[in-house]
């Protein structure tokens, strides 16, 4: 609490003891999104330890996560391509703040990885690990670390994280 600010401050205790009138809410919102033909095949690939991309034969552009239509030329002129499981850090951030706004000592490292074989500036968001946070840099070569085969569920988290090559 900032003592130098004017006014009557609300304390955590006041909230905890129900002295402040509030109503708790829970949306109880549950979903099961159909992943579809593009992302569905991509996720199936992760389960097999592969990374799939798609190439638009009109725009000559390779992207991942893959899509069954090209959003630029709006065609279905698409070819599937298996990509390498290596890539380059395009950008990154060291995340020191937890869900509940508390600080953490060892940061989570989020990064955009340009997967080898895609067109420039195309890749996906994931996490880095097995690396000194202070040594992470744009342009760093990294490789995907998959979960053990039997633990893979066909989720983006089938890749545990990426680490320096």
């Amino acid at each position, binding site marked *: 609490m900032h003592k130098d600010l004017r006014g009557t401050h609300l304390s955590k205790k006041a909230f905890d003891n129900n002295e402040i009138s509030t109503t708790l809410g829970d949306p109880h919102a549950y979903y099961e999104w159909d992943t579809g033909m593009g*992302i569905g095949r991509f996720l199936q690939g992760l389960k097999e330890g592969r990374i799939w991309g798609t190439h638009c034969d009109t725009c000559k552009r390779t992207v991942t996560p893959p899509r069954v239509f090209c959003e630029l030329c709006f065609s279905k002129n698409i070819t599937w391509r298996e990509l390498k499981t290596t890539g380059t850090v395009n950008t990154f951030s060291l995340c020191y703040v937890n869900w509940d706004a508390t600080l953490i000592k060892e940061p989570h490292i989020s990064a955009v990885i340009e997967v080898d074989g895609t067109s420039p500036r195309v890749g996906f968001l994931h996490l880095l690990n097995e690396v000194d946070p202070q040594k992470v840099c744009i342009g760093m070569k990294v490789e995907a670390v998959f979960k053990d085969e039997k633990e893979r569920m066909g989720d983006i988290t089938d890749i545990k994280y990426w680490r320096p090559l």
Partner: protein
Amino acid sequence: MSKNVAIVGVGFTQPQLKTVQVSYKEMVYEAAVKAYDNAHLASHKDIDGFVGCAEDLIEGTSIFDEYTPDQLGAVQKPVHTISGDLLHGLLVATMKIKTGIMDIVVVEAHSKASNLKTYYHVTNYALDPTWNRPLNVNPYYLAGLEKNYFMHHTKTTLEQIAGVVVKNKKNALQNDLAVFPEQTTVEKVLQSKPNFTPQTEAETAKQADGAFVFVLANEETAKKLSKKPVWITGMGWASDSPTLETRNWDEALYAKTSAHMALKQAHIKNIKEIDFFEIDDRFAYKELQHLESIGLYGKGKAGQALQNGDLNKDGKTPTNVSGGMLGCGSLLEAAGAIRALEVVKQLRGEAGQRQLSKANTALALSWRGIPTTSGAVLTFSRSLS
């Protein structure tokens, strides 16, 4: 300012109970490609603006409009999403064109109802958080409350309301897009399980998945693109009281206000001049309540009209020839899309075996469903007067 706006293209996927094979993006893409072809667009690049109709909590993604451009060919174009029914989307697009800023605008709505596992809870989240939600009862009881009041004050009978189900499900037998066509009887409907008395299961529209895309254009462009443009002649929209404690339970004020606004704009003096009606019927009584609220029938008279056969395909005021929501399915924000699509098909003369002999003008009404009192009315015409 562009005075007249028309629908020049429609595209859609086959509505189904589940659509596990495609993502919502892939579903919308299919509808968009078909719509642009139907509108004879040379390229998606000819489109000036896009309107999506979606609700974040139903989609399960906040700021859902961020996710709409790719599948519409709208990358780096003006796009915005409204949390409203497709009919609301059509009138927003019409206004965009009328500003003169845009010549061609696309409207999209879809339903992936099968992906939302707790629909009733999400619906409950639309109720007041402090004094309605904590009661923790499935909010569809609102249909029961309203139906009870409507019947009590209009003397509409259970048999008359059941007749709406029989008619619409029978009409749906002639519509390829209908997910729930059925040959049924008043007796069977009345015997169906009560879900929120006096509402029964058979009188409650069931959900389905599907995607719909409409292409709208100003007069000059519409005449170039289409031999059969469907002109939007009038539009109205309104919301009544959001609170359950003060709302009007017997009359749909949103429908009354919207219709008044649309008819005035379309210079229609007598609503009975309109050839046919596509009306929200997600609960059977709603069709009758809506018909009375828009002024087609006096209070308590729509039920009798139904029994006289006036609402049938060959009646004086054909209503829900498409099969309505009871026959076609309830498609979230795309509910109004089936209404508008039927209008387009009928006015173009492309309705196949259910083609009406007289289909020059039409009125479509959407309601945003429980617990809202929001609606929109659009009037359409085959020709410009």
